[in-house]
């Protein structure tokens, strides 16, 4: 029957036009990083049985599906969270290490050495006002540097807290969008449709969530994605949680609207920010505090035994008046009158024994069997190691991510060569189908002319 040829050809024209639509959609999204290439799954349509024979009925499109490897996607999400953690940590630590201005002549290490040297020099001429002024200036330099380091680290801490807040707002927005997409996708899946582009959009949002916080991602059979963060179900088909930030025991925590405190976030950008805020910076400050407190106590311990260059000489005077909240203060009486620096051990003008003892603190093993400068050097090495380590891990996790991205792209990315081949292929099939109609038409014409 000639009409059957028309039917087969017409169906074929429709199939290859639609296949060309899918190809066109792929080409249009070739540079869209979140896009997953789609393919029209073509199969033979259900055959007809006429006169005991089975007649082929042509071609049909079964479905239009995304080409995706779920295992690679899952690996990508996991490594994306890890890479985000180290990237963010590296960014924040890069700000932290700049605070110490090491190695340079402006660092605390050189200032401490200059301070001790100024005492050594004062011991040569203990009543020299200039040399006493030098000691005060050297102490002020230390005081300023210590205060600057503390203030800068406090600023970075405040910035990280603000960034944590901002990231949580972003996370909330992402969770809300994912919830909306969950609803739309499951509605369409319920009607037998395949909302590929919505799924791509949602996958992109899920990837953003995993890079912000370590999450457990699970796709259910209805087409919804469920994400758990810190032991709490953050989003599913029915709802999305809005998190808020709480400071608790010097740590940054997420809480739900119901007041439930989440387990500590250890991965993603939030994990990195929380780590720098609650662990790294406090650790550096503690170590610096220990060094400055030891300097404060050691200098005062010796200085208070000495005698000032006054008539009569005074004793039991502290060189530093206080060290609180990162602020090292020099005795205001000494600032006003350097003759109140107690350099003499016996009250005579030219005795510089106290100055010598303070100068020698530079060589004393005052903390854990090491000198102050050695301890400070260990602190800086620690800061450098933390930064260097997060750089290395950021680099290596970046390489893994890049490899996974290549694999992901290799499976799901659009190849213009491939798509153009498909265009030609489908165009030829479309042409052939059209030709078939022309042939059937001619056949019909021939028959008509016979009548």
């Amino acid at each position, binding site marked *: 029957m000639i009409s059957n040829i028309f039917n087969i050809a017409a169906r074929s024209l429709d199939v290859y036009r639609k296949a060309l639509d899918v190809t066109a959609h792929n080409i249009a999204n070739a540079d869209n990083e979140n896009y997953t290439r789609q393919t029209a799954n073509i199969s033979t349509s259900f055959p007809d049985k006429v006169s005991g024979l089975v007649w082929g009925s042509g071609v049909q499109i079964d479905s239009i599906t995304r080409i995706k490897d779920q295992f690679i996607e899952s690996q990508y999400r996991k490594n994306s969270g890890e890479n985000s953690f180290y990237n963010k940590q590296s960014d924040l630590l890069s700000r932290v290490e700049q605070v110490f201005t090491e*190695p340079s002549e402006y660092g605390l290490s050189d200032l401490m050495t200059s301070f001790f040297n100024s005492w050594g*020099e004062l011991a040569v001429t203990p009543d020299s006002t200039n040399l006493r002024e030098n000691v005060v200036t050297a102490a002020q330099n230390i005081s300023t540097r210590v205060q600057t380091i503390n203030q800068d680290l406090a600023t970075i801490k405040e910035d990280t807290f603000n960034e944590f807040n901002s990231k949580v707002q972003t996370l909330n927005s992402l969770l809300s969008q994912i919830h909306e997409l969950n609803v739309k996708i499951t509605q369409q899946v319920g009607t037998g449709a395949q909302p590929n582009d919505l799924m791509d959009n949602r996958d992109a949002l899920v990837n953003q969530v995993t890079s912000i916080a370590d999450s457990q991602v699970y796709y259910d059979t209805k087409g919804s994605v469920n994400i758990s963060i810190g032991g709490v179900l953050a989003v599913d088909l029915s709802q999305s949680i809005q998190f808020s930030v709480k400071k608790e025991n010097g740590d940054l925590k997420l809480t739900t609207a119901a007041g439930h405190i989440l387990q500590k976030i250890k991965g993603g950008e939030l994990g990195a920010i929380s780590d720098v805020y609650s662990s790294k910076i406090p650790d550096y400050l503690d170590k610096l505090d220990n060094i400055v407190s030891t300097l404060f106590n050691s200098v005062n311990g010796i200085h208070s035994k000495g005698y000032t260059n006054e008539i009569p000489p005074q004793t039991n005077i502290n060189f530093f008046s206080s060290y609180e909240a990162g602020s090292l203060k020099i005795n205001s009486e000494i600032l006003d009158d350097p003759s109140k620096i107690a350099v003499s051990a016996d009250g005579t003008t030219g005795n*510089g024994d106290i100055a010598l003892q303070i100068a020698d603190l530079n060589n004393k093993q005052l903390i854990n069997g090491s000198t102050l*400068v050695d301890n400070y050097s260990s602190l800086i090495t*620690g800061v450098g190691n933390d930064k260097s380590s997060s*750089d290395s891990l950021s680099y290596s996790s970046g390489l893994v991510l890049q490899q996974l991205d290549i694999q992901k792209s290799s499976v799901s990315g659009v190849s213009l060569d491939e798509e153009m081949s498909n265009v*030609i292929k489908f165009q030829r099939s479309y042409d052939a189908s059209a030709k078939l109609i022309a042939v059937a038409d001619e056949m019909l014409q021939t028959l008509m002319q016979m009548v």
Partner: protein
Amino acid sequence: MRITDLMSVDNYLLNIKRVKESLSTLQSQISSQKKIQKPSDSPDGTGKIIRLQNQFNTSSGYSKNIENGLSYMNVTITSMESIQSSITDVLTALANANNATVTGGLDAFADQVNNALDAILNAANEKFNGKYLFAGTDYSTMPFGYNSDGSAIEIKAGNISGEQKIQISKNVTQKINITGEEVFGTVVKQTGNLDSGAVVGSVQTNQTSVYSADGTEYTFITNYTKTAANTYALTYDIHDSGGASVYSTPPSSQQITFNSATGEISGINGKPASSLIVEAPSHNIQFSFNSSNIKETAGASNLSFSANQQVDIFNTLLTIKNKLLNGELPTEEETARVQNFNQNILNKISSAGNIVNKLQDTQDVLENQQSVITGLLSDEQDVDEAKAILEMQNLDYMLQVTYQISSMILPRSLLDYL
């Protein structure tokens, strides 16, 4: 493997980014001449730089101290040499005065002695960098001068025995002055032991001869009264030949404490042990009393005295001059005191020379140390320019090649041939 267009672009961008990052690092290193600019560039290297820089700066501080010490010691030696030269003149004058062939009065010799005395007094009061050389740790006060009626020369400064010290290396300090007490003063030293088992309230009394400026003999008496464990009250008195005290009011007592573990003096009146100036101006008596070496240990008390000289050189010369003016020759004992002083000043010049040698040797060691540290610092932080420039050149080639190849490959697709 399927290669998509986005993969090619991403790969290209990633490689360009890495090459540019390396280029930027090298560029920054070359311009700053430092290969470590922040701790993460080399955490261990940074720690090493901080420690080396600390060593270098500390060592430079010691060098500066030594330079100051050397200047001070060199001026002190010059001053002592001038004193020794004056003393030689005195000894020559005294030899000539005693020479039987000399005729006439002794006034000319008295003049020579007086000139030498003035020269020695000037040298003893010489200053360097605002500090009296022989004033100990009371260097702002002129150490020696005539008393109010001009009959004797006395110590004016508070503590001419004080040692000025500088730090010259780790845990090492060096005295950089020759004290007035060492050169000119009469020092009565007390050594020996106080019985740590003695009961509170017990008194240990000892005595020795001391001399006034004109050589008159007196008796110096010390009493250590135990007031508590390891603590004593030291009182002293000076009696004339008739046994009468030269003081109308007795000098105040000194509290002496001993370290219970070592038995050494831990302080006098709460301060580190130092010499005590004992004086009785009405009788022209003045000397340093040094008891800082006595100990408190188990066993019977046995304190003893020793003195470097009976009368100091100033008052000895003053006495000799006055005698010569009166037509008298100095006694053999007085001449011997001048000879003793001559020997003493020679010894002090020698010990000052030893200090200078020690300072110079330490300075040499420090300079070597600084040179080594500078080398180590350079190894650790300085950029090897040739290597860095070659690496930069290489990276630049790589960048150009990447651009070239990318420009050839990236725009190509099947579209170009359709």
